[in-house]
């Protein structure tokens, strides 16, 4: 996540490539054989697609970046007057293309970083770190997340079945016709899962005095309100004075509420992930990368945003590059035992 934040601070393609390489290395050395880990490849593909789409739009719709190096000229399509400001076709300049490429790459890096976090931490592991009161919401989210892979497996199975019936198994129509059975199957599975969870004691709750319950509700609600108001204060110009304290008070109240709410839940945790020095190191390295890059962008914006007008070859700024290398730290700090991959990038 921190790497993602770092990525938004720069458009330098060399730095971005370095970021991708760092995340890929960590994933390659530390992933688990769970289905979630395979998502990394899917995210990488998605990122590549985003890059291509961004380039395509730059070519087809033109871009506001002025340029002199004309690569080719597409026929310009005249548009009615209500679509003024949108240009279809026309000149394609090298500057515009490079700009779009940088921009696309930034987005792509962001996606890849999210993918890496997903592959390494996995929704189930994040669930383990949730406070007890939020556990049930968390389970719902995780069940929803595992829904997608099951859905894909169902679609594949039913398309195979269509083939067995002698119908074409490709094309949009083929896909649409399996839609209904797939949804039916998904629904049935959800019900079966719910029955299994119920039978295994999911949602058992302890008796707590009414006073505690009321305090919990008040604290949580008040806390959330405080957080909202505080954020609003921070974002609007005039609220700068009361914004920060209100936000902090809100967060504190909400946390206290969650803690109290946790008393109602009987759940205990089996082998919770210990939050030790190593985990701090891992999180710290991610945060450090983000902080250093932010600092660098404040100090020396030129190096991180190579100009496109006029066209120059991007240079590799030394210090930010070194900062990104920090992100490799988790790969060495954490032993490669198959069952101990620490999440190198906690949401920060």
């Amino acid at each position, binding site marked *: 996540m921190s790497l993602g934040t770092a990525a938004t601070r720069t458009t330098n393609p060399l730095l971005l490539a370095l970021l991708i390489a760092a995340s890929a290395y960590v994933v390659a050395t530390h992933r*688990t*054989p*769970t*289905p*979630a880990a395979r998502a990394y490849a899917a995210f990488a593909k998605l990122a590549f697609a985003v890059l291509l789409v961004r380039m395509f739009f730059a070519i087809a719709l033109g871009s506001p970046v002025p340029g002199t190096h004309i690569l080719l000229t597409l026929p310009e399509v005249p548009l009615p007057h209500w679509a003024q400001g949108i240009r279809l076709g026309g000149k394609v300049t090298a500057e515009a293309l490079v700009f779009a490429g940088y921009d696309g790459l930034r987005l792509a890096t962001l996606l890849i970083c999210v993918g890496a976090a997903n592959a390494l931490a996995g929704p*189930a592991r994040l669930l383990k770190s949730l406070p007890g009161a939020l556990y049930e919401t968390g389970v719902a989210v995780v069940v929803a997340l*595992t829904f997608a892979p099951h859905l894909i497996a169902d679609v594949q*199975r*039913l398309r*195979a*079945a*269509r*083939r*067995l*019936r*002698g*119908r*074409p*198994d490709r094309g949009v129509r083929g896909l649409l*016709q399996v839609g*209904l*059975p797939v949804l039916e199957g998904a629904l049935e*599975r959800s019900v*079966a*899962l*719910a*029955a*299994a*969870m*119920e*039978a*295994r*004691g*999911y*949602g*058992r709750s*302890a008796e707590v005095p009414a006073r505690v319950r009321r305090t919990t509700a008040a604290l949580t609600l008040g806390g959330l309100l405080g957080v909202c108001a505080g954020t609003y204060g921070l974002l609007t110009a005039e609220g700068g004075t009361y914004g920060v304290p209100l936000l902090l008070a809100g967060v504190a109240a909400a946390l206290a509420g969650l803690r109290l709410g946790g008393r109602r*839940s*009987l*759940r*205990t*945790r*089996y*082998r*919770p992930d210990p939050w030790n020095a190593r985990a701090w190191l891992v999180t710290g390295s991610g945060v450090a990368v983000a902080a250093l890059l932010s600092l660098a962008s404040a100090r020396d914006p030129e190096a991180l945003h190579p100009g496109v007008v006029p066209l120059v070859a991007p240079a590799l700024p030394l210090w930010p590059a070194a900062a990104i290398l920090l992100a490799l730290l988790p790969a060495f700090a954490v032993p490669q035992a*198959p*069952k101990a991959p620490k999440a190198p990038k906690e949401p920060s």
Partner: protein
Amino acid sequence: MIRFEDVSVTYDGAAEPTVRGVDFEVPEGELVLLVGPSGAGKSTVLGAVSGLVPHFTGGTLRGRVTVAGRDTRTHKPRELADVVGTVGQDPLAHFVTDTVEDELAYGMESLGLAPDVMRRRVEETLDLLGLTGLRDRPIATLSGGQRQRVAIGSVLTPHPRVLVLDEPTSALDPAAAEEVLAVLQRLVHDVGTTVLLAEHRLERVIHYADRVVLLPAPGEPPVTGTPAEVMAVSPVHPPVVALGRLADWSPLPLTVRDARRRAAPLRERLSASAAAGTHATASAGAPGPVAQCAAPLQDAPAAAGGRTGTARRSLFRRRPAPAPETTRTPGAEVHALSVRRGRIDALRRIDLTVAPGETLALMGRNGAGKSTLLSCLVGLIAPSTGSVTVGGVTPHRTAPADLVRRVGLVPQEPRDLLYADTVAEECTAADRDAGAEPGTCRALVSRLLPGITDDTHPRDLSEGQCLALALAVVLTARPPLLLLDEPTRGLDYAAKARLVTVLRGLAAEGHAIVLATHDVELAAEIAHRVVLLAEGDVIADGPTAQIVVSSPSFAPQVTKILAPQQWLTVAEVREALA
């Protein structure tokens, strides 16, 4: 421990109660087996123990069910979770987390046990079920038997006093089933757990049961008694009981061992009548497929020699000498077929020929490559190397509409093949897909499934009916090669017997049939040839009698009882005695 007091359950919208007058008690530490035909309400009774019926499924429960003194009317399933552990028919639907160890811990986490207790119990359970090597594995990568053991383990860790299992061995190969049953046996003996289980494959479980509860038909009150008493009257019974009834043994033997000790006189009678029977068969001609594969091995050449030239004649000849080329084109030919899926070799250099009119059973462990081979034959999977030819074409390069006329597959989950809302629509669609005359499919349905009305929804059909409908849909295109993947999963003995009749008829019409199955009794009844697969290799290929007799885990019960004589099914024995 478990007490049913005059319980009846009526589901919403149903006119009749699904079960009625259920009144029995399961004492602590007993293993009680619940038997009965499909649709007799076994799952409903099991659900009532865990409280899922009626709290989760809806419907009305009359009477009283108490488990360890707790009334299920006042206790929700989650409040019974510490005394009752439930494993449903499909272990995959049961898993909440994605690794073995987390799954074992899940139930205890829900109950709020202390972390050190959880850790200790997880380790104990891993040892008890032999799962230590799998502790970090994602559940998605486990085989069927391993999944079933993990599912049992996951409900064992909270130390329930009652374990409820719905068809725990139906989807498993014989060895994996033994594994699971051995675990149950150990729980009952060492830990004193009370076990209530429902199972169709009685031959696997009947000798473990202390008592049997029989639900004879939907809505009829159950019959309770010792296994021998109940089996004497039960409409569903394993081959050993059928043989015992045939030979008038009393009390009925329930294990192969008991039966063997009684079987000496029967063996003598059989060897006498077999010698006489051979002459009768040879002179009277072929009385049908039963007798053809029924002829004991040593008599087979003689019996086949007495018959006029049928497709099967070449088959019998093939066994002693390597295949003399038949004049008819083979139904399917597989040559040096290898398939890689991911990093695993699913199949390694398989050579296989299926002749028209031949029934071939593919057997082997879960994950041995049976389904992969079937998928290759029907073109769902492209071979990595080697070639597959079905009816003169390469399946994975042929358009689906053309391929259905050459080969048809009934998948493991026959419901996948059915989309329409009514049986009639399904049939019309099948006729259209296959380019057959309108009404072809409906005629087949009427033959396979008499008494099904046009407006029935396919989802309301039982497992056996669903299979028959899917079979009819596939047969509409009249494919000369018919493939079935695990056709007897979830079928009771009656449905299985109907399936056997249908398949025999098809084979006699010249259809080549390949079935992947764990059911040794089914293979013994209809297969002419058995191919054993292990880890993607063919490890044995030969006539059924030869293969199953030589393998302890794949031998049907009748073979085990009457060894060293080579009989496969009760029907054969009955025929020989008649």
